[in-house]
């Protein structure tokens, strides 16, 4: 093995050296172009949001956020997230479990359907619910007879948001579950654990980082969703307006400080999500790297340092 390695490595390094041996000015130009692009399209707009939000001072910023309608939009957005995230956590884990552990007729169809919300325009997603539950929709007459309002009300926003964010937890958990296999669950089953005990003691701890990752993404999308929510919400200020919708309305009314103040909150959410995502990604990576260590000798006596030395 070791005898065969050097020539391979030297070929590899020669090729790598060839790639890296561009002239310095070419390297600087390429790096500079990439940085300029990032600055122009990401950093400047990001800074601009805060610049505009604080254009008339911190007092105006706070007043804009404390504004009744803005505040109600913030509250509604949080409420939506609080409802949608646990729902998609449950659906996502259940769907991932089903798809990772069982073979059944129509499995590939279900897999494709899970991705549907991503492949359909969010506006269409919203429209689906209007066509189902709107006044002219299939269930419209039944709902209005019973005094239930879904479209242009909170339930509609919850439905549309749940639909749009469904794949986030399911996809992430499915990948983790498929990578891990089901031997631990079988071991717990053989030791006498019931289905719920297996889920609680074995499966959830195993997939916890994958779940957290999915939940973070799901939360960010649930709070930031515009298209689908815009169609079903009706834009009733103080009642069915979420933060992204509020930003649009404020902007259209030329209330720039208000628009950017609310937008700054969503931006902060995005930044916090990115940071959390990075932290969790690192934890997931660490968990995956914990590969078995190649065997060391059996300790027939008790050398406590033996296992430590084996790592």
């Amino acid at each position: 093995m070791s005898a065969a390695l050097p020539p391979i490595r030297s070929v590899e390094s020669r090729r790598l050296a060839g790639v890296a041996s561009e002239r310095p000015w070419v390297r600087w130009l390429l790096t500079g172009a990439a940085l300029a692009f990032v600055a122009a399209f990401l950093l400047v707009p990001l800074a601009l949001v805060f610049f505009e939000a604080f254009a008339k001072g911190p007092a105006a910023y706070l007043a804009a956020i404390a504004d009744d309608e803005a505040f109600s939009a913030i509250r509604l957005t949080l409420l939506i997230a609080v409802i949608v995230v646990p729902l998609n956590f449950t659906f996502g884990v259940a769907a991932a479990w089903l798809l990772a552990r069982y073979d059944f007729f129509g499995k590939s169809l279900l897999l494709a359907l899970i991705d549907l919300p991503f492949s359909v325009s969010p506006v269409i997603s919203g429209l689906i619910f209007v066509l189902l539950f709107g006044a002219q929709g299939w269930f419209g007459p039944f709902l209005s007879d019973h005094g239930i309002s879904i479209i242009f009300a909170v339930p509609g926003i919850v439905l549309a948001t749940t639909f749009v964010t469904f794949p986030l937890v399911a996809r992430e958990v499915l990948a983790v579950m498929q990578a891990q296999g089901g031997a631990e669950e079988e071991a717990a089953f053989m030791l006498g654990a019931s289905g719920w005990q297996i889920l609680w003691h074995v499966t959830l701890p195993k997939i916890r980082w994958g779940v957290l990752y999915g939940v973070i993404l799901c939360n960010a999308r649930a709070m930031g969703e515009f298209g689908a929510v815009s169609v079903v919400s009706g834009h009733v200020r103080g009642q069915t307006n979420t933060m992204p919708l509020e930003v649009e309305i404020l902007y259209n009314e030329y209330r720039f400080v208000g628009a950017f103040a609310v937008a700054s909150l969503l931006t902060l959410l995005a930044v916090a999500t990115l940071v959390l995502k990075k932290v969790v990604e690192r934890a997931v990576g660490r968990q995956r790297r914990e590969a078995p260590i190649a065997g060391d000798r059996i300790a027939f006596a008790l050398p406590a340092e033996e296992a430590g030395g084996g790592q």
Partner: protein
Amino acid sequence: MSVVVQGLSKRFGRQGEAAAASGVSFTAPTGHITSLLGPSGSGKSTVLRLVAGLEEPDEGRIAIDGVDCTTMPARSRGVGFAFQSYALFDHMTVHDNIGFGLRIRKRPRSEIDAKVEELLALVKLPGYGGRYPSQLSGGQRQRIALARALAIQPKVLLLDEPFGALDARVRVELREWLSEFQTSTGVTTILVTHDQEEAFELSEHVVLLQDGKVVQAGSPHDLYDRPATPFVASFLGGANVLLGQIRDGRADMGSFAVEGPVGAENGASVRAFVRPQDIRIEKPTEEPVANVQLARIERMTRIGGNVKLAVRLGTGEAVTVQMAKTEVEGLGIEQGDRVMVDLKEAKVFVEDYTI
């Protein structure tokens, strides 16, 4: 605590095209290790999972300790199971892993602690309770997995390729340890393995499977000395294969002729399996001896105390011969020498043309 399996069948796939086990019957005697031996895809793991209750059989019966448990849920069967991948709970300490089955059964903490300590001593890892599986070597993990399976005091222990993921040296060590361990606990054990050496060393009873069927069951000696089919003969011990024909009741392979199988018809094609250690090599004598052929030693390779010889027979066929180093030195033979070869033993099967 014996395990009796009768006519066990299991098909996988929606169309049921793949029969993983068909009509498997065997008995695993109380207090011993029984090996299910076979190449990959022979259905041995499926049979073990059926006995465990991890899969449901399509046909057949399973009785543990005289009680029919074919339809019994796994948790009521009183079996412990160890996986090739160990399947330890990575987020729990060694202590919590071993105590898992008892915690599920809501046993008092003091009882669990005492049992875990006892089992850690049994698997020769005392003081390891506070560690996590990721801090252990592969061999240590498998011993913890065995301790965990034993914590619920199973009537039967089922081991699915328990040492399959370990390197050769640790495998041999763990094999010795398991033998000692099984003798001390006396728990009836069924071991699934593709390694015949492992099966022969650990068990008095070996069940050999091929394509989901039992081809032969018996003691390691039975299987080795009296293989029932060409498959058994070739699977157990890298044998030389020589082709020939029946002539006057004897199997004639050109270079050699041995007693043919009883009732073989004259002219029938035969296939003989000859183990490397069953070919005798001698210095050529002056006058030719009947039934002894001249051959040439093409290559000699020393492996520890043994020598492997590549020998070209007079008929042009190449065979592998294995001899003790001292024997080779005693004969004074060298690479390139012409020698006389003779068969000590060969397993002869009449060729089956129904294939």
